[in-house]
């Protein structure tokens, strides 16, 4: 760790001629003002609009053979660069300058507002079913800021963004104390230490942001919403509140999701798509959020299948998990898959760097090395217990998305 609070992690991997520099800022859509949603993501775009000493971020990087991108989630904002390792210093130069200060150009704000509005349209409004999560989140979260998506509640919030807000947001969240940097690939730890001190050491620590978000109370009533839209097929969503990423129950929940929905041998696909022929597709997945998360089901029933039948079929699978222990073979199967996925994922440098950053944020990068063990330790009884705890009617939010039929 540097004196100014920046956490730095090195992951040496000499099988590649490339290096990765990944910076995670501990700020996401959950940290936004409810009247200014979508701001963390808009801000991510503005991080490419030039910094205090470097007018253009992308060009100098491309000139040394590098590429970059970034993403914003409800929890974090993550920026990454990959480049030939011989040119790693360019990455330090660029990233440290925009942590030091942005150029805050008005033109950049104006253009990126438009770009983000087009992104809003392209991903959420101009796609069939694109707005589902804009509707589902506020059903599951009544208090917690997870009730809005990273793109924001509405286009107006993005249109209203002012340069003063941008500056304040930067001061509050973009400083060494709120960041984790991972440097990986064909690099040496000593070299990274030196470069980190040189480029990031002089940046003032800034103020530590203390997160104090309203936590979501437990849900004790069934929630339902039906909407009609110009889509070709009906769609059923059932969302349950579940534990946070750091809860012990997270690993059990992920195995449940795998049992239900991972691959062609999973229960939902086999029973509901293939055997009973009720859905054209049906999936289960989790948001994996830092605070209380969502365990969601989504299925498109076949045209001759009623919504009631479709919903009942999903519940039947959940009831089975609640009543019967998962057979040993089936549990071994999903655990084997987790184990081999971990081995295969070692081959992807950038993913590894991102994972290290996010585990460091959660407490300790070394946790990543103990993940497989935690999945292997889960028992059939724990799965049954968790299924009973999660899959209750009064913990569910059901969104029925009906196809508007031409009259």
């Amino acid at each position: 760790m540097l004196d100014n609070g920046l956490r730095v992690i090195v992951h040496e991997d000499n099988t590649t001629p490339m290096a990765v520099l990944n910076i995670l800022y501990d700020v996401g859509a959950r940290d936004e003002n409810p009247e200014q949603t979508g701001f963390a993501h808009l801000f991510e775009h503005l991080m490419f609009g030039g910094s205090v000493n470097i007018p253009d971020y992308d060009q100098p990087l491309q000139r040394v053979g590098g590429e970059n991108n970034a993403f914003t989630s409800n929890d974090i904002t993550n920026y990454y660069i990959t480049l030939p390792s011989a040119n790693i210093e360019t990455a330090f130069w660029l990233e440290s300058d925009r942590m030091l200060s942005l150029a805050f150009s008005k033109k950049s704000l104006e253009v990126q507002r438009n770009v983000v509005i087009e992104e809003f349209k392209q991903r959420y409004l101009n796609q069939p079913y694109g707005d589902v999560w804009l509707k589902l989140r506020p059903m599951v979260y009544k208090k917690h800021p997870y009730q809005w998506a990273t793109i924001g509640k509405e286009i107006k919030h993005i249109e209203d963004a002012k340069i003063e807000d941008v500056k304040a947001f930067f001061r509050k969240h973009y400083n060494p104390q709120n960041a984790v940097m991972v440097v990986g690939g064909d690099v040496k730890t000593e070299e990274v230490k030196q470069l980190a001190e040189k480029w990031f050491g002089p940046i003032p620590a800034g103020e530590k942001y203390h997160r104090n978000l309203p936590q979501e109370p437990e849900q004790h009533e069934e929630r339902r919403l039906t909407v009609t839209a110009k889509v070709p097929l009906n769609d059923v969503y059932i969302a349950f509140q579940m534990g946070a990423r750091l809860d012990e129950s997270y690993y059990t929940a992920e195995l449940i999701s795998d049992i239900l929905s991972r691959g062609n041998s999973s229960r939902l696909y086999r029973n509901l798509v293939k055997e009973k022929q009720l859905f054209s597709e049906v999936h289960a997945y989790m948001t994996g959020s830092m605070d209380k998360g969502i365990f969601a089901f989504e299925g498109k029933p076949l045209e001759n299948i009623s919504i009631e039948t479709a919903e009942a079929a999903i519940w039947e699978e959940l009831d089975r998990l609640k009543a019967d222990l998962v057979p040993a073979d089936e549990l071994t199967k999903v655990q084997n898959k987790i184990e081999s996925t971990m081995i295969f994922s070692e081959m992807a440098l950038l993913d590894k760097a991102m994972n290290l950053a996010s585990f460091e944020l959660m407490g300790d990068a070394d946790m990543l090395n103990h993940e497989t063990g935690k999945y292997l330790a889960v028992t059939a009884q724990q799965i049954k217990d968790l299924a009973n705890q999660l899959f209750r009617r009064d913990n569910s939010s059901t969104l029925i998305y009906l196809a508007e039929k031409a009259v």
Partner: protein
Amino acid sequence: MTLQRKTAPEFRAIENINLVRPSRQKLDNGCDVYCFNSGDAELVRIEWIFQNQRFNPEKPLLNMAVNTMLTDGTESLTAAQIADKIDFYGAFLQVDYGYDHSQVTLFSLNKHLASTLPVIKDLVTNSVFPQKELETFIRNQQQKLQVNLQKNDYVARRVFNNALYGNTLYGLSADIDTYKTLHRDDMLSHFRQMYQPANCTMIIAGKIEPATLQLVTSFFDKDWSDTGQQIDTTQPPLMPAAEHFYFTEKPDALQSAIRMGIPAINRSHPDFPALQVLNTVLGGYFGSRLMANIREDKGYTYGIGSGMSSLKHAGAIFIATEVGSDVCKAAINEIEKELNRLKTELIAGDELSLVRNFLLGSLLGSLENVFSHADKFKNLYFAGLDYDYYDRYVDTVKTVSADRLMMLANQYLNFDRFYKVIVGKY
């Protein structure tokens, strides 16, 4: 010493790019096997790649359906049993249909190969396409298609391909009714003709020990022979349309999808590497002219890019984007301007050197692991090229002149002759 934050650190140009070359072996049954050995982790990826059969416009979905349904049952295993076996051993099984080839891919830990390989063997020799599975397949595909047809960019791609290639393997997209042409008998005979060792190339990447190779050949050499069925992998000629402009109106559209382009060349043509440099300047990276102008300056779109497709019998250069429906015409005007600039103004030295470095970095960065080296080989092998191609590519990227690029722009980027497809509002 004060830190020079305004000046970029020194950087080094990329000199050498080392590509791993495979060892080759021809099996007695006629199947070619290429191996990329890397001792790092105890895992392998094995691909079985088959050339598609000649396209039949009366039965256009056969290549795709036969490939996709390989996991749906054999003489001895049901779809469920196949999935169980693969998943139990933590392996991954994929089938992928492409315009020129269909393939089966297995990712497996070495220690489980003895259990996973027999499943693949069964798929490529004994698939039966059960009637019930076929019905499920058709219904689910039809539902997915209904959803996709609501997506403007999807519709634009269909219309564009059909304009460029006509009703051929590359140009014909299924309608809901097209699925009615699928029959189990046709699929069975298609399968027997196409999935034979002599029509197969195997590519193995990962940890390959003598025992690994022995295991593979024990299943896929002497025990796997041709079916004796005739196979025809020639293709009918492509039929570009006379009409060059297509507008599909969607009155409620918030954005319009634009796709435009022109038949060009594929990888085997000597101009290809230089044209890739030109394409990169135009729309092939984040700092490209199309992005700089239409996204970063005008804010008309979330993204715009250009690309080159290289198929066995065709190549094309194209531009694709989704823009606010109120600025569709304006965006098209800007695209035309950018194309004309490439034809009339030399690319400045600074921009060109940036693109050179970017492309070399991008090639280096695309070689992340042993699988990527195998993927590079596939690009060459199926275009009938050898490793000299990458030497030429690197050399072209480093040295191609602005004059030559302007000539290529005049030769290949004629906006008036572009096929133009708009879905949304115009």
